[in-house]
């Protein structure tokens, strides 16, 4: 499949939650097959970008666009689409904090998911992917990821450890094979070995036909997934983009230089976090 020119383009994106502006003009372009890293201090808006790309109903796009460019050059702005329509177009988000769905087995969620994503026109009630075929594929993917097949019988994220949740997200990524994926801190809560395994798994799943935005605080996840570009978010904007050396610098030295270089964004950051404090005070 020719995927060279398929792109996900975020343009001057402004996003508000409960009327409060969080993203203040984000620009980002990811080609299918490319890996990008997104770093930035806590609260800078990284997860918000992931939610906005998937269409979380609480995250309101107040201006700007999120466009999907097809290989034939067709462009479509997806900001009005439902999250499931976006998933069926080949978008994916590995959650920083995945939701538990008690009583629903990982395999059942995945069987519905796979059926819809591979057959985007499928309506509820229409046939699901065949049980045998699905089971076989699931088992194969799980063994590749060194996961026990019993795992698929557990209820989605219900009582999972932090590490299990992240591995379940990677399993879903592997089964759904999106065109563009946002991996939101898929390494947090994992020990060093698990991060290495995750890094290898993602490298194996990805490849030429997947565009990936890796949100991370660490370099290890990038070890097997060398990013084409590393972006730094501060105060709801991407303030700097560079090669892999940027990740190394931030990992070693933190964000002081970034804050000093971009005082406006730093001021926004301060405003956003003081807003949080005000909320906390109001709540107590």
């Amino acid at each position: 499949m020719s995927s060279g020119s398929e792109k996900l383009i975020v343009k001057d994106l402004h996003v508000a939650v409960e009327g409060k502006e969080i993203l203040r003009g984000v620009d980002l372009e990811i080609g299918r097959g490319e890996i990008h890293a997104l770093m930035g201090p806590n609260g800078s808006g990284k997860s918000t970008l992931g939610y906005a790309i998937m269409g979380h109903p609480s995250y309101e796009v107040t201006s700007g666009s999120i466009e999907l460019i097809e290989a034939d050059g067709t462009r479509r702005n997806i900001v009005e689409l439902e999250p499931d329509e976006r998933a069926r177009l080949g978008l994916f988000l590995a959650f920083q904090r995945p939701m538990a769905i008690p009583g629903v087995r990982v395999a059942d969620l995945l069987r519905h998911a796979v059926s819809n994503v591979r057959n985007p026109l499928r309506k509820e009630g229409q046939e699901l992917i065949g049980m045998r075929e699905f089971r076989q594929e699931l088992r194969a993917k799980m063994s590749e990821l060194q996961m026990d097949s019993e795992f698929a019988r557990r209820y989605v994220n219900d009582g999972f450890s932090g590490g299990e949740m992240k591995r379940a997200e990677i399993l879903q990524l592997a089964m759904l094979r999106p065109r563009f994926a946002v991996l939101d801190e898929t390494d947090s809560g994992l020990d060093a070995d698990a991060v290495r395994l995750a890094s290898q798994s993602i490298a194996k799943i990805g490849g030429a036909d997947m565009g990936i935005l890796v949100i991370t605080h660490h370099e290890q996840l990038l070890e097997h997934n060398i990013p084409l570009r590393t972006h730094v978010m501060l105060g709801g904007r991407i303030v700097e983009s560079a090669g892999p050396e940027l990740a190394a610098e931030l990992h070693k030295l933190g964000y002081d230089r970034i804050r000093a270089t971009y005082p406006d964004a730093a001021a926004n950051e301060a405003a956003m976090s003081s807003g949080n404090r005000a909320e906390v005070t109001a709540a107590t």
Partner: protein
Amino acid sequence: MSTVIAPAAFDQTALESLCALDPPWVADRRRAAFERFQSLSLPDRSDENWMRTELRLFKRSAWGPSVQPGPEAVEHEGILARNTKSFSENFLSPEAELSEPMRLAGQIVTLNGHLRRSRCDQLVASRGVLFGTPEQVMAVAGESMIRPHWFNAIDSGADMFAAMHAAFHRGGAIVFIPDGVRLEQPLHLLSCLTEGGTDLGHVLVVLGKGAEATVITETAGGGPAGSGPGGLHCGGIELIVGENASLRMVNIQNWNTGVWHFARQKAKVHSGGKLQWTLAALGSRLSQVAQDVALVGVGAHAQVNGVMFTEGRQQLIYNTLQHHEAASCISDLLYKGALQDRSRLVWRGMIKVDKSAQKTNGYQRSDTLMLSEHARGDSIPGLEIEADDVRCTHGATSGRVDREQIFYAQCRGLSADEAARLVVAGFFQQVFDRITIAPVREALAEAISERIRRIQ
């Protein structure tokens, strides 16, 4: 089109025409209950069991026993029909995961409490099993067999509806399983109502020592909610689980939404006996159910499962009692209800432990899931413990479908509706995991899933 049968009144004339068909001892009991019935008025809100029940629109004088419907009257299907071999021999499951369709050892179908048809597997009957409507069984079984159990467990004077039932019961089923007989296939009672009809069926199940059986009762029909006549069910269930016997009892209430449903149900579990009792409710306009389990012999075990789904303006009220009368018994109740629209679900649960019931293990828990802002669920657990060496726990949760769960599933390609149905199915999974009869589980899951609309 269903036939509307104008009810007579619950009066002396109606009583005597029923008594005329009964053995004398049964008729005497009816007359005693009738006296009590006449002295009682509608339960009111000063009674704790009824304080959350809206009875203002119930007109006692509007109801009476239904006459026998003509042969053209329409019967209804229960929700188990599609999973039950006797209904559709050519059952072909579209879903490979569905379990084998269920074969029945016997079946009774009634309409307005009048027998339509019944059958009992020859092999089963030859092992001494009695299965039929009370009329049918009393015609063949001796008085000494039935009399000790007939209206022995439930209190026919408890309130006006209990007395109405005891005076005017007709239809239902008697099940007798002799000592040591183990029935693998379920016995099935389907009670149907015409629009405006009444059903006062009485169910008595007696398992001898070491016997095993599965009994499923289902209800269907009656009129829809609105200004029509709806229907009335005023029923009773008595379960006697003998020593070391094992009974799986399932009651599926799926009346149309214009039906008033009043039910008094009690099980007695003897020493070493096991009861798995599943109550499922999808229908009726208003339900008032008293479900009691008495653990009367040492080491008895009762598991109680509740699966409720309400919508529209339905109102379902459950008062449950787990009464530990003997030592070393286990009772474990789990009710799960999902509420849509403006419906209301009330559960009041009580674990009562007598002084002699040491080493009791009692659990009760009720979870409700609101699918709309206007639905209302009340869970009121209670403990009354006189013994000192016991373990009793209770709990109740009430929640909404979490929008974050819906979003998560949507991110995986499920539509919002599909996601909601999956989340609700997950909510019931814990209680489905306990119900060991696969076709019952599947039929309930399917019936509930069909009723869920977009989460508001």
